[in-house]
Structures are given as C-alpha cells and as structure tokens.
C-alpha cells in the first residue's frame, strides 16, 4: 500500500508546468492530478519553488534563442508571468509548502552529500523531506531522478511517479526510454 503523503521534488512539479514535459513525463502530471483532486497530499520545500522559477527563466531564455538572458532584459510581463506561476503553485490544493522548524545546517548538507553522493541542492530538499518524515507517520519521496531515488533510499522511502498510477499512458513520449514504465 502506497503512502498518501508524498514529498515531491523540482522535476515532478516542472513536468506539470513546461508544456513539452507534460507530453514527455505524463506520470508526473497524473500524480499531481491526484494531489489536486485530494487523493494524495504532497509536500515540497520552499527552496523548490525558487529552483522552478530559475528553470522557467532559463527555459524562457532558450525560447528567445539566447544562452544567457539578464534578469533586466525580461519584460515586466514575463517577470510577472513567472512569478504568477509560482504563486499559483503555492495556491494548489493539497500541495503544502513545508519549512523545517529546525534550521538545516551546512554541516548537515555536507555530511549528506558525502555519505550518499547526491547534489547539494538535492541534499537540502532531502533534509527537508526527512524533517517532514519525522512528523508524519508515512511519507515517500517521489522523484524522477534515478540517482536521487536510489541513493536516498537509505534515508527515506522513495519512488518514481509511475508507482502511483495503474498504467502508463500509451502516448507518453518517454515510453521507449523510461525504465520505470508500467
């Protein structure tokens, strides 16, 4: 039986936002649909919102055909649109932005990076998830990052979003490359 409380990382939420990703990673969309309709409760870190914001900015830059677009060159409308998407994320039903009551130390991050060999930003997210887990009876980290999924298993239960759906959609664009396909 899968937990009804999940902790989602940046990729899962981005898959729901960036148009091409919605076609490529349909399991993430189906998972967040389950959150939106109340069958699952999702938590994420406030830090994840900023990471999403940065990736939206980069994606917009790529759309404009430039490798690096200064913040100042974004139009007020584009800035407002990016911010509005993030605000809407915070408004999503059953998606809770969790913040640790106990501050996370650099040493915690450093130790976790060294012990399970994950990226620093992933360590921050995982440490946040671990604090949430300490308060909840059950909590599973849901990520598409195969390395994070495997390496975090010593700390917390982890799963690919496809674990939460009965069958992968036949029109998912990653159907030939996804090792977690059902």
């Amino acid at each position: 039986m899968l937990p009804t409380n999940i902790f989602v990382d940046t990729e899962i939420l981005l898959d729901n936002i960036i148009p091409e990703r919605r076609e490529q990673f349909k399991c993430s969309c189906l998972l967040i649909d389950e959150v939106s309709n109340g069958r699952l409760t999702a938590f994420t870190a406030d830090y994840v919102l900023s990471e999403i914001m940065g990736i939206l900015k980069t994606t917009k830059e790529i759309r404009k055909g430039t490798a690096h677009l200064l913040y100042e060159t974004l139009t007020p409308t584009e800035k407002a649109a990016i911010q509005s998407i993030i605000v809407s994320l915070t408004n999503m039903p059953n998606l809770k932005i969790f913040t640790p009551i106990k501050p996370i130390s650099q040493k915690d991050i450093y130790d976790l990076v060294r012990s399970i060999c994950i990226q620093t930003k992933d360590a921050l997210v995982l440490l946040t998830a671990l604090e949430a887990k300490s308060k909840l009876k059950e909590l599973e980290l849901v990520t598409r990052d195969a390395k994070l999924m495997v390496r975090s298993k010593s700390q917390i239960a982890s799963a690919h979003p496809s674990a939460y759906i009965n069958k992968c959609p036949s029109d998912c664009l990653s159907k030939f490359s996804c090792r977690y396909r059902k």
Partner: protein
Amino acid sequence: MNNDMWGVVPCPIIPIQDRLEIVTDLVERPFLALSSTVQAILRYFEIAHRMKWTFVVDKTNGLLVLDVEKDPEALRAIRRKADLLLK
C-alpha cells in the same frame, strides 16, 4: 572544511518577487564544487530575513506550512500561464 565555516540555513521564506534576482546561480551552475554550491545556496538565503509570508502549523500533520488561500483551479491556471509564457 573548517568547522567555523558551518553556517545555519534559516527557514527559507523569501518573497516571490525577490527571487528572480538570485535564482540564476542555483539553476545555471548546478554542478559547481560543493563549497561553491553551498555559497550559492547561502546567497539564496541572504535575504531570508525579509519575511513577508506567513507559515502556520498544519493541524492535520503538525508541520509548519505556508499559509495561503487554496484555489481549486490553480493547477489548470499554472498550465495555462506556462503555455502563454513559453509558447
């Protein structure tokens, strides 16, 4: 690393409108050496004292969560806004 370098990452409560200025380092240089990435994360938290958001204790779970009004149409709105932004 020297023990004196260990800092404490405060609870991240940064107003959305302040974030675009500081996210570039986090996104564009994800494979920096550990110490540099920690520095980038610390820069992210430098303005954490400008707290404008309210967190509340979630009654069901006892967790500190962002207190905002929920919108049943939010997910649809997110996708629609992203379509417009990234078309």
